[in-house]
């Protein structure tokens, strides 16, 4: 069963310890200046944003059917069975299709590097495989970020909304968006106000299906189209041969 993270914005106190733990886990620099940055970047995989005394965290959503993995020409991204969407830097050619394709705009790039890598939260795959929590969930003092089985966390989130309906928007962001994600978000405010794409806009269809509908036709298309083209070639050249044999002028047909 796939693991997931439940982030409950109503429990978050904005201490940013998740940011610091994430930086430490991924060996990234973290100081007051980085802490003050309110956007994600190649050196900041997760960010806690503040708006009117309310907080909201952003990180890679770890889609059940990730766009980044489907578009990568060399398969540098893949979804692990435990849940994390991970990146094999040694395969990457740097086309940045993953960045353009991601509905949540999560992959970031090392624009200043001469051998740049794509950077994003990879959900601490080593820890997860070892049966441990992610670094951010482990350090969270209030339990706002909680690690667990996706199904359990969904149940828990539904319970929290039912028990305290006035505190929450009546939805779990990530439950159905783009076919479901392994990061689930509960909030009193609309997550869209913090820059998350609107549910209506990204829809419930897994992103790979948009291109898959076309890609799946290609194996049939190739033989059929080759036969058609070959057939036309044969017919028009047959006509030429016949014309030559009859010694007459052949007639060119036009498309």
């Amino acid at each position, binding site marked *: 069963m796939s693991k997931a993270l439940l982030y409950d914005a109503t429990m978050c106190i904005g201490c940013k310890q998740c940011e610091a733990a994430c930086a430490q886990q991924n060996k990234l620099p973290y100081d007051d200046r980085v802490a003050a940055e309110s956007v994600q*970047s*190649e050196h900041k995989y997760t960010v806690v944003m503040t708006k009117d005394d309310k907080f909201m965290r952003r990180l890679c959503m770890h889609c059940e059917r990730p766009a980044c993995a*489907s*578009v*990568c*020409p*060399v*398969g*540098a991204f893949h979804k692990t069975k435990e849940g994390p969407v991970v990146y094999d830097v040694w*395969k*990457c*050619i*740097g*086309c*940045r*299709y993953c*960045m*353009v*394709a991601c509905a949540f*705009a999560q992959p*970031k*790039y*090392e*624009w*200043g*590097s*001469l*051998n*740049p890598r794509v950077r994003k939260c990879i959900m601490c795959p080593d820890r997860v495989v070892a049966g441990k929590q992610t670094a951010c969930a482990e350090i969270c003092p209030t339990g706002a970020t909680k690690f667990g089985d996706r199904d359990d966390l969904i149940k828990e989130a539904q319970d929290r909304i039912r028990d305290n309906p006035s505190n929450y928007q009546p939805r779990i962001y990530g439950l159905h968006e783009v076919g479901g994600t392994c990061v689930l978000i509960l909030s009193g405010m609309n997550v869209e106000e913090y820059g998350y*794409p609107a549910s209506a*806009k*990204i*829809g419930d269809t897994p*992103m*790979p299906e*948009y*291109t*898959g*509908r*076309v*890609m799946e036709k*290609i194996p049939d*298309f*190739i033989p059929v*189209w*080759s036969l058609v*083209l*070959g057939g*036309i*070639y044969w017919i*028009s*050249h047959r*006509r*030429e041969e016949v014309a030559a044999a009859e010694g007459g002028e*052949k*007639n*060119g*047909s*036009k*498309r």
Partner: protein
Amino acid sequence: MKIKLTFWRVVFLLIMAMGLYSTFVRYFYGLGAVSNMTDQFPWGLWIGFDCLCGVMLAAGGFCVIGAVYLFNVERLHSVVRPAVLTAFLGYLLFIVGLLFDLGRPWYIWHQLIYMNPHSVMFEVGMCVIAYTTVLFFEFLPNVLERFNLKTPIKWINKIYAVLVVLGILLSTLHQSSLGSLYLIMPSKLHPFWYTPALPFLFFGSAIAVGLAMTIFESTQSAKALGRHLELPVLVELGGALLVALWVNALLRFEDYVHRGMLGQIIKPSYEAYFLWLELTLAFVIPITMLSFKKVRLSPQGLYLASVISLLGFITNRLNVSLTGFETYVGHHYMPKWTEFSVTLMIIAMGFALFGVAVKYLPIFPEEERAVKRSLPSEPEPEVATAVLSHAGD
């Protein structure tokens, strides 16, 4: 030997100098230093122009080959070689462009070993590799003839049917797939340009552009080589272009009707201005022009109509790849001058290589090659004014 400094040679040298400086910045300071690409705008001019437009502008090869070898339009036989040359150079330069744009170009060969068959980009990559190989063999007879090597030409003629079919098949696949690349971004790309019909529209416009580009390059090279223009060829191409433009225009119209967008596209907005520009250049002006028989029978008229429609389809590709994302991102993207200079350098290389090839290889029929020579580092196709000022030539 004394090399005369003509105006266009000076321009060529300036473009190359700036391009080489930008190349240095690209490989010694990175993509961030050389471009205005950001995490919000990870694909810039190099994808929008060098890749999308570059492949589109190289479509003349498969269009003319298809017309001549599949549909027996014998009159176009004389433009097969220049069209194949343009396509071959176009794809080589597309690969050069990729080497600038890829963050880790030294791993480009990974494409061949770490395959992801679900990826549209993978499919485009494989098709481009295969098609460039096909074009190489279609181009090779020029070189073999030059050195009078008859046996290998016979081998190539034996497999020519395969090359023709394979070339058109691969072109169909990747010209349309360049549109499919954007299918995965329904929430990002502006609805004026996001449509499930993208692969069809990209393929359809590639055919129109292939015809327009053949008219453009025939006229240009005739001028540069002091050759006399074969008007019947241009007239044939012009007629086909008119049909292709109508088909494309109807496809676009049908797409907007089907998605209920007609009300939105006539309302003024930032995107609407770019869309109007695109549709005016690609369809309204050239279709109007070509509807007059006088224009269809005049080399200048055909040239001008082709150039305008080319600019329109270039605008279309840039709208799909750049304009269409600005509202989603929330700010504008303007390429840095170093990005422009790399693009200009690649285009200039294309013109120069074309000039060298037609000078030394039997691209045009021998009797028509005049003694007059010149290195045609001509104006860049996307600079409207520069090209238009030459239209009357």
